[in-house]
């Protein structure tokens, strides 16, 4: 077994929940969570809103300092890094977010958006960078003329392709994707998911893929972690978790997914559904 690329150990994140100073509340978004991912894997993290999955992603990206625990990327604690070490880490770890429209500067052309990471890292000459931009655009299925366009001239799917192109400009080891297809139409979503798969094959990437859509997670992931209330309640090989879920919460979640291939609601599966009245945060707890 190869060394893990990323190791998250016992990470917790408590946010200030307000209240007077002698009785301060805190909200624990991530609660003593550990996970690891080996090079070349795709880890899917699935959970409902408030489960802490986005917080976890921000901790891994070193955008949030956890209140406890450690994140090791390529064997180094990301919070011990500074200067050159930190720059190297940032280069090796890239992200794609849900709303590509808000992650681009509207006044920058696609070409300069994509060249920016190269400029920051002082890679190549001006002409060389232009060539690399064209190359990356081709790689994500857009032609080189897109470099002249501006974000508002792109469709949602094209914008997400540009976001992927930007993430792979520096040939990172790890790409984190937070709900990258949930703003897209179904037909376009399939294109983008297949692009993620193709990029992984082409460039040997490792992914952490966060989504609330179980179908998407099943399709893209080798390994799955199901998050609930800041913890991972079930983890394992994707096929095993989806075909034979062991935790009650995973089962409730899977059972609540409306599925075009299944019969309509109220035909026997209903009894196993998540309890009618309980909000998601009180969904069935582990009975073990």
């Amino acid at each position: 077994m190869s060394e893990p690329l990323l190791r998250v150990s016992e990470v917790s994140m408590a946010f200030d929940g307000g209240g007077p100073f002698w009785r301060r509340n805190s909200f624990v978004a991530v609660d003593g969570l550990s996970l690891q991912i080996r090079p070349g894997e795709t880890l899917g993290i699935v959970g409902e809103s408030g489960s802490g999955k986005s917080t976890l992603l921000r901790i891994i990206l070193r955008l949030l300092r956890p209140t406890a625990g450690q994140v090791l990327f390529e064997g180094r604690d990301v919070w011990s890094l500074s200067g050159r070490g930190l720059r190297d880490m940032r280069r090796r770890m890239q992200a794609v977010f849900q709303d590509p429209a808000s992650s681009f500067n509207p006044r920058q052309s696609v070409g300069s958006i994509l060249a920016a990471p190269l400029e920051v890292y002082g890679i190549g000459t001006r002409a060389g960078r232009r060539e690399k931009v064209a190359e990356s655009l081709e790689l994500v299925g857009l032609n080189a003329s897109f470099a002249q366009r501006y974000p508002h001239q792109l469709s949602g799917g094209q914008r997400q392709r540009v976001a992927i192109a930007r993430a792979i400009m520096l040939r990172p080891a790890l790409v984190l994707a937070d709900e990258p297809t949930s703003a897209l139409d179904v037909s376009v979503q399939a294109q983008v998911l297949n692009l993620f798969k193709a990029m992984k094959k082409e460039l040997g990437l490792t992914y952490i893929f966060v989504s609330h859509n179980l179908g998407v997670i099943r399709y893209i992931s080798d390994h799955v972690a199901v998050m609930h209330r800041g913890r991972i309640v079930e983890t394992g090989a994707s096929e095993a978790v989806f075909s034979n879920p062991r935790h009650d919460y995973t089962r409730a979640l899977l059972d609540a997914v409306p599925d075009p291939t299944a019969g309509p609601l109220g035909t026997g599966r209903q009894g196993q559904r998540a309890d009618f009245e309980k909000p998601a945060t009180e969904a069935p707890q582990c009975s073990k």
Partner: protein
Amino acid sequence: MDQGRPRLPGGSQPVLEISGLSIEFDTPRGVARVVDDVSLSVRSGEIVGVIGESGSGKTLTALSVLGLLPKRARVRSGSIRLAGESLIGLPEARWRAIRGDRVAFIPQDALRALNPVLRVDTQVGEPLHLHRGTPWQAARRRAVDLLTAVHLREPAAQAKKYPHQFSGGMQQRAMIAMGLALEPQLLIADEPTTALDVTVQAQVLKLLREIRDTYGTSILFITHDLGVVAELCDRIYVMYAGAIVEEGPVRRIFARPRHPYSEALLRATPTARSVQAELVSIPGQIPLPSELPPGCRFVDRCSVAFDACRRDPPPFAIEAGHTARCWHCEPRP
């Protein structure tokens, strides 16, 4: 909701009948026809789904039934009938009498639709006060009954809260309660569960089904989610780029879609319940109304297009109640 709505005689008389509806926008670059020759009906007690991606015209079709089209949009042709009464060109005063009373609307974003400075019971009871002149106190009491009917926990206590104190699922329940206040014949729901978590979504879908079964309310359900449609609807209309490309019973269409677009949509949707073969993505993107190809509007993205597709296909009957606008479905002589 103690006494059920008297069912219409015949049971299958359409509550809503849209025929040949076309809606246009004036744009700086000319007229854009965003809904083109749409015909659709909802019978008493039926749950009908309209499924489509963005730009398919599904929401505008729904808004036209409520007289809530944006100012720049206009109905170019066609008719909309609610239990026989024509709705096109009604004066605003008449619309106000119909909306809420005979047709209720459940939007996607319940929090934005609720008034942040009014308590929930006041809002849920408001239609009774406005339409029926029920005194406020009685209307608020009735609101608690309605909140009970939508299975809100501790309805009496919750009724005194403000919308922001509710979770997303509770807000949507409050919207549904408000919609039911005047026992409308038709509920129009536009992506009501899209913003909700899957477990909460399952609860809301079950509630809608229960409402239909209990009160015989007809529901027109607008969504982009194939799974939701399969769970909830009796019949569906598949819309693409402003037109209905296939209609029929939901089971039939899912088992054997006949329009290449419906089929492609099914094969592009990742499923959590079974091993997913490679997702077949639809190449290209949905055309803008100003850039529609001549003939079939799916022709540029279709894998089985042939010569005939340069002409606009009419709806071909596949069997009773199931039609598809595709030349491949043309009956062979």
